[in-house]
């Protein structure tokens, strides 16, 4: 019989080289498109993850809250847009909707507060914009692009990862391309197996926006030059800013914590950095192996599922995904092993969270302290703040990573242990700074010392009553009353000159 040789499929589509609309791909790849549309299902959770976009700090029932919650998120991000709204991620088809709807971006003003860089990981429109504006793009006004966008056609899609004509995998992300270059690598020479993870590394990584003193303003950069682990990244950030603040000279600073006055770093979704030296990453198991398992849609040819989601949503899914490599194990067993790691990670994550809160409070008390201070008071406060910065960054590394530890159990737990140590050191320095006069106020359960902030948003910050409702909120400035000007891809309020 004459059977075709199996080989990497390379296609000759009839699409334009600069095609970026998702719908354009539908006709030629109906099966792929069908799996792509499955990303619209945002109704199912697993034990520790899943796709319902609840508020991650709220404890309780779906849809707004969940049984595994991190009650102090708003406290820990006080003064930073993340404290206004942060939800569980859902499928790629929602990326643009969620970006254009999130309260982190200031929709009450003509100035978004955050730069256009935010589009980087949400739409293949980036290909056009980067072509057109080059490095000027990043600092342009975010709102000015809203009206160009179609929520479905322009959400993360085919052109983000594929050459529209050959369908070969490609990297469209500027920061990834450049980060690889700085490390002497080039994705154009990567193996197929590497590409099956690199396409994800375009987005599922920690990033920061370049300080304008050091290059094109607000350009996204991946902080990998000294290595991809939290210790390396912390070091890296030491000279990537232009602050002249004593003790933090030259540090990169995402924001200054409103309550403890600490120059902070925010970590976002370091999946790739967590995975790469874990049990699977080190063994060459790619993101796509687990998140894009082969499926037989027409009962014949296998295609890569384009429903990027938790593999643990059903026994069938586990069987088809994990089961190909772990064929001797049952889905229940495999799920049990994931949860085994996640339980332990989650418990330590909450301990680290609590200690970070305690550290901010300790510095708050020390800064408000009016009694006799030791000679080295100022140094001690700086030391305490430096440890807060580090402890919270390490906590956030695991908090922001989306597998609750599974992508790399040992690294997740190590990072949390270190976070706890740094935060405890912060507490120690802060107590020392007041000759332990403030120590009694830090005794006992953290819930009794600092209450979790449940509600907070841009709208609420326009109300003095709200700012009076929690001692920590008192550190925030009252925002002028205002109504929504922008939402999704539309102007919803009057234009102001």
């Amino acid at each position: 019989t004459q059977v075709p040789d199996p080989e990497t499929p390379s296609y000759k589509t009839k699409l334009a080289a600069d095609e970026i609309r998702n719908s354009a791909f539908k006709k030629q790849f109906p099966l792929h498109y069908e799996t792509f549309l499955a990303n619209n299902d945002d109704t199912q959770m697993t034990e520790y993850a899943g796709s319902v976009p609840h508020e991650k700090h709220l404890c309780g029932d779906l849809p707004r809250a969940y049984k595994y919650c991190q009650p102090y998120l708003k406290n820990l991000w006080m003064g930073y847009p993340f404290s206004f709204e942060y939800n569980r991620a859902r499928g790629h088809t929602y990326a643009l909707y969620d970006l254009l709807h999130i309260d982190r971006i200031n929709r009450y003003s003509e100035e978004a507060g955050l730069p256009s860089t935010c589009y980087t990981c949400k739409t293949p429109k980036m290909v056009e914009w980067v072509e057109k504006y080059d490095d000027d793009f990043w600092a342009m006004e975010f709102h000015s692009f809203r009206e160009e966008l179609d929520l479905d056609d322009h959400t993360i899609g085919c052109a983000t990862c594929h050459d529209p004509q050959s369908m070969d995998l490609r990297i469209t992300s500027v920061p990834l391309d450049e980060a690889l270059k700085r490390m002497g690598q080039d994705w154009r020479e990567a193996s197929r197996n590497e590409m099956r993870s690199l396409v994800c590394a375009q987005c599922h990584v920690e990033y920061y926006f370049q300080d304008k003193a050091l290059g094109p303003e607000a350009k996204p950069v991946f902080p990998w030059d000294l290595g991809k682990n939290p210790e390396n990244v912390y070091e890296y950030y030491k000279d990537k800013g232009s602050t002249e603040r004593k003790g933090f000279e030259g540090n990169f600073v995402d924001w200054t914590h409103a309550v403890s006055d600490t120059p902070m770093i925010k970590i976002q979704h370091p999946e790739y950095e967590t995975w790469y030296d874990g049990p699977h990453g080190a063994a060459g198991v790619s993101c796509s192996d687990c998140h894009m398992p082969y499926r037989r849609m027409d009962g014949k040819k296998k295609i890569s599922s384009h429903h990027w989601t938790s593999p643990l949503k059903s026994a069938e899914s586990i069987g088809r995904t994990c089961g190909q490599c772990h064929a001797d194990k049952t889905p229940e067993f495999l799920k049990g092993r994931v949860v085994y790691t996640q339980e332990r990670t989650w418990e330590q994550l909450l301990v680290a969270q609590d200690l970070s809160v305690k550290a901010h409070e300790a510095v708050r008390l020390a800064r408000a302290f009016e009694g006799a201070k030791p000679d080295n008071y100022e140094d001690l406060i700086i030391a305490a703040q430096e440890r807060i910065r580090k402890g919270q960054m390490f906590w956030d590394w695991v908090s922001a990573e989306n597998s609750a530890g599974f992508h790399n159990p040992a690294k997740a737990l190590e990072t949390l242990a270190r976070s706890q140590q740094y935060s405890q050191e912060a507490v120690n320095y802060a107590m020392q700074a007041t000759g332990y006069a403030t120590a009694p106020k830090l005794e006992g359960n953290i819930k009794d010392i600092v209450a979790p902030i449940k509600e907070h948003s841009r709208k609420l910050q326009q109300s003095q009553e709200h700012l009076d409702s929690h001692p920590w909120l008192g550190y925030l400035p009252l925002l002028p009353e205002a109504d929504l000007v922008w939402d999704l891809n539309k102007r919803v309020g009057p234009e102001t000159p």
Partner: protein
Amino acid sequence: MKVPPGGMKTLLLALGLLLVGAGIYGAADFSMKATDEPAFCGSCHIMYEVVRTQQNSVHASLSCNDCHAPAGGIRKVMFKAKAGAKDVYQNTFGDVLDVIHTTQATKDVVNENCMACHTMTNINVADAKESCTDCHRQVPHFSKSPIAERRVANE
């Protein structure tokens, strides 16, 4: 023990000669087929484990050389003769390694065979990884399973 060691050696030598003969002269259909089957490979205690596991796998109905020798033709004969002679030689005169590992030649041949049988369903899969068994790690010898389920002393 079932077979007196001396008798085994004689038997194996004979088989070895048979194989080498087959390689040199081109094989009669019968011996070519017989020397593909688990029954033949399993005549060697060293091969018990792999026969045992293969017999419990979804591939139980295949013969060993559906995977372990190139499909048909002179290439198959040559490959078998070489592999067979080596197996017999090692078994009779040489030291067998503690854990038998496949040679690169075997890996290549086996992978070709996976692809040949499963082509229709694998058009898109092909070389996502270096080999099919990078994903299908248990095929067909259950290599990640506890030792007690497949390996035992004296074999």
